[in-house]
């Protein structure tokens, strides 16, 4: 439904130009959750902003049901704007402090729902939908808890009846129990409204819980993408492996910080990305070829795609007679909640 093709986004700064998103191809299917993970500065939020058309790309295309929406502006863009919505990390910052709950939720309805009574009905229904008591309608954001504020932000996002919601770390500002409630709500809303989520996160546990497929980004590129259980539980790219290994253990018997091997060093400067494979400076497996030649994202075992010279190629039996190695061919139907 949403297709991103060879997207490149650059930022001009005083210190030079940064290629924040470097040729990303992604597809998001109706009703699925695609998790996007990576360290700060890997380009995942820039990618989200480009999808929202808040940041114009340097090149590449964004297609919604086959229509190129990359450069639509003004009135022509309106129908597409409604179909792709976003929820930000910090609801305290994304909500207007002077708008009541009801007014904040009504605002995205203004262009399409002209009748005030009908709008009020829609607002009440949306509040029910996200589990906000109607008694909260006249509250201001500062009179709400963090979880309630994020529910308001979610109600605003689903108000125009979108097909795609970009969730940029939607629970990382919340306590564990509130995280659970908001994640449960997002799953319920997805089922009820058939939403597709682009779920951006750095908490592997949260992404593991939510995603159908997971894409891993490193310095502006996708380095691995595939079914969540393959990518998270049996990562193929050495960076994915390091990222998953860095995630805190579920219990003390599964791993202790004092004894584990952690990924050394930090993300290289995006102003001067390393030649060849961008990860070779931190990669425990890097060979000479990795320093010279950037690996392309190509098909690997289990129907996933990996950008690593050392990743094993798909075996004949798992991928019979693959002639057109596109992501779509590798898609396996995913198990949904009953």
């Amino acid at each position, binding site marked *: 439904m949403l297709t991103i093709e060879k997207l490149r986004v650059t930022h001009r700064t005083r210190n030079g130009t940064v290629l924040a998103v470097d040729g990303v191809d992604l597809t998001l299917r109706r009703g699925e959750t695609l998790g996007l993970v990576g360290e700060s500065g890997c380009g995942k939020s820039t990618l989200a902003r480009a999808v929202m058309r808040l940041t114009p790309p340097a090149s590449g295309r964004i297609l919604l049901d086959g229509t190129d929406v990359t450069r639509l502006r003004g009135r022509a863009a309106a129908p597409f704007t409604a179909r792709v919505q976003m929820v930000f990390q910090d609801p305290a910052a994304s909500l207007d402090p002077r708008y009541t709950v009801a007014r904040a939720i009504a605002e995205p309805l203004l262009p399409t729902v002209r009748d005030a009574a009908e709008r009020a009905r829609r607002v009440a229904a949306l509040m029910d939908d996200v589990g906000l008591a109607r008694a909260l309608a006249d509250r201001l954001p500062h009179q709400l808890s963090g979880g*309630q504020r994020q529910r308001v932000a979610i109600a605003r996002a689903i108000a125009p009846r979108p097909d795609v919601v970009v969730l940029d770390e939607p629970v990382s500002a919340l306590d564990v129990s509130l995280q659970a409630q908001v994640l449960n709500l997002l799953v319920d809303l997805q089922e009820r409204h058939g939403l597709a989520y682009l779920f951006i996160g*750095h908490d592997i546990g949260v992404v593991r*819980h939510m995603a159908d497929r997971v894409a891993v980004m490193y310095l502006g590129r996708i380095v691995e993408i595939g079914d969540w259980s393959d990518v998270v539980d049996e990562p193929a790219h050495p960076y994915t492996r390091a*990222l998953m290994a860095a995630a805190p*253990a579920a219990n003390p018997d599964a791993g202790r910080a004092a004894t584990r091997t952690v990924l050394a060093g930090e993300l290289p400067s995006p102003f001067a990305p390393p030649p060849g494979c961008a990860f070779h400076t931190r990669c425990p497996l890097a060979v000479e070829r990795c320093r010279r030649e950037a690996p392309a994202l190509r098909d690997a075992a289990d129907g996933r795609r990996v950008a690593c010279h050392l990743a094993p190629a798909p075996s004949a039996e798992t991928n019979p007679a693959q002639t057109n190695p596109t992501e779509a061919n590798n898609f396996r139907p995913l198990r949904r909640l009953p």
Partner: protein
Amino acid sequence: MKANNPLIVVRDLSIAFAGAKAVDGLSFTVAAGEVTALVGESGSGKTVSGLSIAGLAPPEARITGRVTLAGADILGRTPRERRLAGHPAVSMVFQDPQAALNPVLTIGEQIVEAVRADGRTGARAAAARALELLDLVRIPEPGRRFSEYPHRLSGGMRQRVVIALALAASPVALVADEPTTALDVTIQAQILQLLIRLKDELGMALLLITHDLGVVAEAADRVLLMRDGRLLEDRGVRDFFDGPRHPYGRALLAARPGRRTRRGPRPRLADTSAPCLIGGEGSGAC
């Protein structure tokens, strides 16, 4: 002091703000060489408990009870008063290194200032000690970093500087309040490992304040579970994860996302139903 004597003893600690009780009759001990995790959600009173142990509680807090450090009564005394009284230091590491560092002073100037707070160290000796501390927290090229400003450093490097600042007073105990929460997952693992290594190398006690049960599983030896200012559980970390006794502890463990298995539906996360302090009656949101 015997090896397994508790270093810090907290007895019946209560903290109130304008009549509202944030901490209510808290008692526990912290042993040297151990990582004690103080676990709870926002508003459980864990941070203000840590602040009062470090002598950094806000002046408007009404604090009662008793906190002793190696036998000396330290409650209600600022770090300076403790130093003048000859007590060993308890230092604090905060969540947000950006906020904990002064943006207009170089890394070196800030650490030198912290080293010289004892009033006895000369400028030259303090600079040498500052370099030593940067090396101790494993900052590469400490000589170069010494004269740089905080904005030049990444979040992980800044947190290392904050830890170096905390070590400047040669503390016997470190209170670390969500030290990894603001960092990326790969850097979180590095900082957690650094804190544990420093605890072992310097023989400190580490009181780790966190809401992240993953961090607890990785680092803690003992778990103190708090809610609404009260201590619900005080147990060894394996006991805690094997099955907390308190229903709240069980709910917290079940609320962690990511327990999903390869086959089968996405599990529903447990609702711990923390009481809402902001009047969200019937809202279902908190």
